[in-house]
């Protein structure tokens, strides 16, 4: 029907008719528009936005996972879940602060490592001199597409006390630790080499969030280092691709010009490539930061937070409190604090990135 009207309109060129037709078509388009996005909107609302609101409500309750949290059976406790997490001394705050400390180190080492490694891979794969670039690119990206579960199982094997990693280390004369049972912090170990094996008074006595400064300054535990290695290995392929896109955006004429002007390889890298790659680097840091704060799968399979809670992460605390101990209110509160941390860090990151650009 629409078709005939349209033909008439285009043939007759009568303005009023044409306007009516357009509006008729617009009406059809409007209806179709909503019909087309309806499935997506329904799914997003029901399984994403509504659940977040529900969890916000549950984080204010003392709910054990039985019955419905909306029936009024669960006690409304206000912000007390958040208080016991952040301010009240106790096991919960202790666990949470430990998980934050662990994750801060995890994030620092992981983000640094992944930026360096994936940048190096991208440079190598983008080289003008070497052949077989797409072959190597395919290989370096492979760990990124395999499942975190399979990779965790593999790393559990590689990092066994007498496993592959330690055997390889022994070839170069290094006596590897028993990775997953060693709770010592790396910074503590390094300080121990210089004779500082106990906490200096000031560091032991000052506490932040229930943890002494000495504890905050432990560095990642040996077990956490294994997790960091895993994450760098598994995610560097993805970030390599981001860097590769950035590198290929650098106009080749520009590199040619600098080379003709006599800049060597290192100078070209330092004064041309790096400055032009700044946006890619900021993007990769942001993405790596966001994903690092959420680490969960590896912890679930490899360490469950042990040894001595040094691989505890906020996501894992949230999961165990809810599904292990039946304290869903606490678990939800942890999730929201984690959410807040990630958002704040992302905003800070954006802000820092923008400052430098202008």
């Amino acid at each position, binding site marked *: 029907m629409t078709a005939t009207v349209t033909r008439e309109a285009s043939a007759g060129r009568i303005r009023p008719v044409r306007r009516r037709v357009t509006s008729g078509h617009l009406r059809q388009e409007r209806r179709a528009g909503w019909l087309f996005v309806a499935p997506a909107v329904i799914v997003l609302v029901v399984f994403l936005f509504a659940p977040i609101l*529900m*969890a916000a409500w549950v984080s204010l309750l003392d709910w054990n996972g039985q019955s419905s949290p909306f029936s009024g059976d669960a006690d409304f406790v206000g912000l007390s879940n958040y208080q016991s997490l952040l301010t009240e001394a106790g096991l919960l705050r202790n666990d949470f602060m430990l998980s934050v400390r662990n994750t801060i180190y995890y994030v620092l080492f992981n983000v640094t490592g992944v930026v360096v490694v994936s940048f190096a891979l991208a440079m190598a794969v983008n080289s003008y001199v070497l052949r077989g670039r797409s072959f190597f690119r395919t290989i370096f990206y492979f760990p*990124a597409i395999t499942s975190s579960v399979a990779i965790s199982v593999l790393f559990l094997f590689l990092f066994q006390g007498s496993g592959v990693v330690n055997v390889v280390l022994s070839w170069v004369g290094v006596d590897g630790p028993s990775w997953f049972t060693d709770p010592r912090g790396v910074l503590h170990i390094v300080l121990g080499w210089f004779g500082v094996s106990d906490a200096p008074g000031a560091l032991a006595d000052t506490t932040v969030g229930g943890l002494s400064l000495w504890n905050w300054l432990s560095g990642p535990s040996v077990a956490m280092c294994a997790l960091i290695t895993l994450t760098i*290995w598994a995610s560097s392929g993805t970030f390599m691709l981001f860097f590769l896109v950035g590198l290929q955006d650098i106009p080749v004429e520009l590199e040619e010009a600098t080379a003709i002007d006599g800049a060597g390889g290192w100078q070209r890298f330092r004064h041309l490539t790096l400055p*032009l790659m700044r946006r890619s680097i900021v993007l990769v840091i942001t993405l790596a930061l966001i994903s690092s704060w959420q680490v969960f799968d590896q912890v679930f399979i490899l360490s469950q937070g042990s040894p001595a809670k040094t691989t505890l992460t906020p996501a894992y605390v949230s999961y165990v409190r809810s599904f292990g101990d039946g304290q869903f209110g606490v678990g939800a509160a942890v999730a929201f604090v984690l959410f807040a941390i990630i958002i704040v860090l992302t905003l800070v990151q954006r802000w820092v990135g923008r400052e430098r650009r202008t």
Partner: protein
Amino acid sequence: MSGLTLRRAPRPRRERDAVPVVLTDRYSPLPRKVAVRVVGYGLLALGTLLYLGPFLVQVATSFKTDADAVGNPVSLIPSPVTLAAWEIVAGSNPAYSVPVFRWLGNSFAVTISVTLGRLIIDSLAGYALARLRFRGRAVVFAGVVAVLAVPGVVLLIPKFLVLNELGMFNSYAGMILPLFCDAVGILLMKTAFEAVPTELDEAARIDGAGVFRTFWSVILPLVRPALVTVTILSFQGSWNEFTHFLVATSDPDLATMNLGIARLTAGDLQGSQQFPLKLALATLSTIPIAIVYVFFSRYFMRSGNATGLK
């Protein structure tokens, strides 16, 4: 800054011949040429060893005996070669059974359903957001973009809550439906539709096609590469999915490959037993992805970049 304007220059094609001579080592003295290549390929070989080696160890270990796996972890040649682990995986060992076929079946069922669902939902929504003028389009678009900002792990408990309320806990529906949320796919399809000239829509309309007909028979076939990308992204994503199934089910009969392996492995730190079995399972769970990757690595890489559209 000058860098910003420079970046907008048209991207040159990196054919080998198009690379200016000064950037290659064609006229470098021979020793330098050799040195550059030795170091370059040496590093690439080291990288290959580091990125591929663990998978070789994994496959080799799955053919070892438990004692051999622990005693000679690095060796890539099992001695003796044994199929014990794979026999357990195949269910032909009556003494020890792992419900691998159940896990595989669940994984495939969920993966295929999620992929089909996402293809339909993403392309419809992507088309509407790219082409159709309707009130509220900006709001819907903002909502989709907002989804990207939500960290997935924060959704663990919320997902459990909603499935619990809807009575979908421990059901296939509860495993599949929440995974239909796919903001990246919607944006990917939207971008693809926007690249199709609007004249085609108009031509189809003038020829009498309704909105759906235009979408289905005229425009959709033109965005096939994007559909392949979404297919691969969904396949990989739902095959590798772990946390959602962890909170959406407790029934062992609903376990997927990943969940089954994780439950089998978690909490078994000190016991170094049965690594051949665990690594055989890990290998099995990697095979479908590896096969798709070999044929479609181009699309995998495209999807990796698409995620960065954020």
